[in-house]
């Protein structure tokens, strides 16, 4: 196993606030890596700093062996890092198919001969429940999450960043989504996910990192981290019952 993503002392400061405080991580190929922490701990900012939405104020990001510190998000996407946002970012006036087609055309390193076929394939992969010509603006939350996933997968990523994908879903929907995430991992995509729902974390993640006030306070196999008293105090609550 080799590291897909390595961060070394990544730092992001907003004014006087240190949002990401020297975070060093390494994510191995083929794993599902969870990032947990209380609200406002800097998890999303950390993802933004490695995916090119923000330029880090210090430290290095190495993706697939290449130093990608400060690259823009479209460049990262073409290098094989796809992501979804906490709030879906579809192109509302386009159909679901067109949304995925755009990603298939522009997100890949090589030129895709038939973006339509690829888009249809990816929509089928995430079990998109609606006709592919439905305008994105008329989709509901669950459908939008699947569209987001299909769009991220259309650029054939090596690493997929999921930012609170499970937020706002019912228990039944959670199960379906977890199956899809497992299916994506089995197709050879490494996944980093930020999540609050412990059921999803415990059910999916191989390893976990805990971020608290911008700093990483724990990292390791899921069970170990979840039982770490420091983590329990910072985030899970002292009596979290596995």
């Amino acid at each position, binding site marked *: 196993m080799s590291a897909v993503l390595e961060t070394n002392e990544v730092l992001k400061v907003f004014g006087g606030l240190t949002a990401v405080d020297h975070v060093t991580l390494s994510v191995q190929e083929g794993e599902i890596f969870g990032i947990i922490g209380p609200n406002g701990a800097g998890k999303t900012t950390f993802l933004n700093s490695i995916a*090119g939405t923000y330029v880090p104020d210090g430290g290095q990001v190495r993706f697939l062996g290449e130093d990608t510190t400060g690259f823009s998000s479209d460049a990262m*996407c*073409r290098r094989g890092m796809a992501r979804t*946002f906490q709030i879906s970012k579809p192109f509302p006036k*386009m159909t679901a198919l067109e949304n995925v087609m755009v990603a298939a055309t522009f997100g890949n390193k090589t030129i895709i001969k038939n973006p339509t076929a690829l888009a249809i394939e990816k929509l089928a992969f995430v079990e998109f429940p609606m*006709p592919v010509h439905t305008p994105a603006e008329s989709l509901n939350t669950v459908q939008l999450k699947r569209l987001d996933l299909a769009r991220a997968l259309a650029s054939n990523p090596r690493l997929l960043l999921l930012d609170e994908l499970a937020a706002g879903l019912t228990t039944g929907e959670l199960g379906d989504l977890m199956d899809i995430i497992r299916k994506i991992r089995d197709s050879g995509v490494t996944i980093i996910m930020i999540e609050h729902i412990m059921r999803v974390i415990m059910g999916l993640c191989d390893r976990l990192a805990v971020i608290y006030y911008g700093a990483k306070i724990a990292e390791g196999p899921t069970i170990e981290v979840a039982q770490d008293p420091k983590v329990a105090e910072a985030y899970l609550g002292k009596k979290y019952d596995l």
Partner: protein
Amino acid sequence: MKEEKLLKEPFLVVFKRWMMSAGGITITLAVVAAIIATIDSGPFIIVNTVVTGGMWALLSLGLSLVFGVMNIPNFAHGEFFLIGSMTAYFVFNPMRLYLNDNPSAFLSAIAPFLGIFLAFLVGALMGIIMEKLIFSPLRKRSRDQWVMNSFLLTVGISVVIINNIQLIWGANFKGIPSYWNVDPLEFLGVRLSVDRLAALLLSVITLAIFWYFMRRTQTGRAVRAVAQDETGALLVGINLNKILSLTMALSAGLAAMAGASLLFMFPAYPTAGLKPLYVAWYVVILVGLGNVSAAVIGGFIVALLQTLTSYYIGTGWEDVIPTAVIIIMLIFKPSGLFGSVVKGVHEQ
């Protein structure tokens, strides 16, 4: 690819709703007014409307596109029109003089197209230069107060271009009598000069190509993607700088093309861009900011208003009536006739 059936409402329901919307009412009124005026005074009303309307459509489409995609209220748009007519003049006039001495039927037929096409290219180039030299650095520095800052910048650019053109080529009118030196055609009892017919055809063909580009090509989809969600567009790997340059180039090129096609009506001189600028803004405000397809319809509606005003009331009122109509319209529908919600820069 198999078309999957969507749940569709019956056509009549959709049609009825459309007819009751502000846009539907306006289009119906415009068509009725055009028909009545045509019966009353002759088909030249319709002919004039569609000829100028096509060009206003090209102009306002570019203005609307730049506002929709880049959030720039471009007050230098008229200068692209002027650059187009200047280019066409300097390309076409020497050819015209040469052809006077050495007649050649083939060359006289294609020379105007050459002038118009070069005008498009020069306009597009100016658009790219403007984006790379001015807006791109501003975007990197700060996005605060973007609309206001870019508005001030475009006004400044407009002043600079106007004065430079005056400095280099003087303030005199540069016009041509006509592109094609042939007899007007008779059509439905109207005498229609070949120049006007060509302008109409050019605008219709360009609009069709543009529509196809935006709807059916991947690059067009990328432009729409950037307009709808900039962060999302970056997320799927779209190179923002390329798309923004392309948008500016298209917008400026279309305006320049309109200027070149109408050179026989509007000679080129330093402040020739003002009127087209006002018209394009009338149209864009009338139909709603950033709504590209509605800008095309708006172009024809404003052209009809102008034609009717200048025939029934007097040429001097040509700008007054459309402005008055827009003021009244804004009271009732502040977001424009086809009012789509305009996205703010901060929401991007």
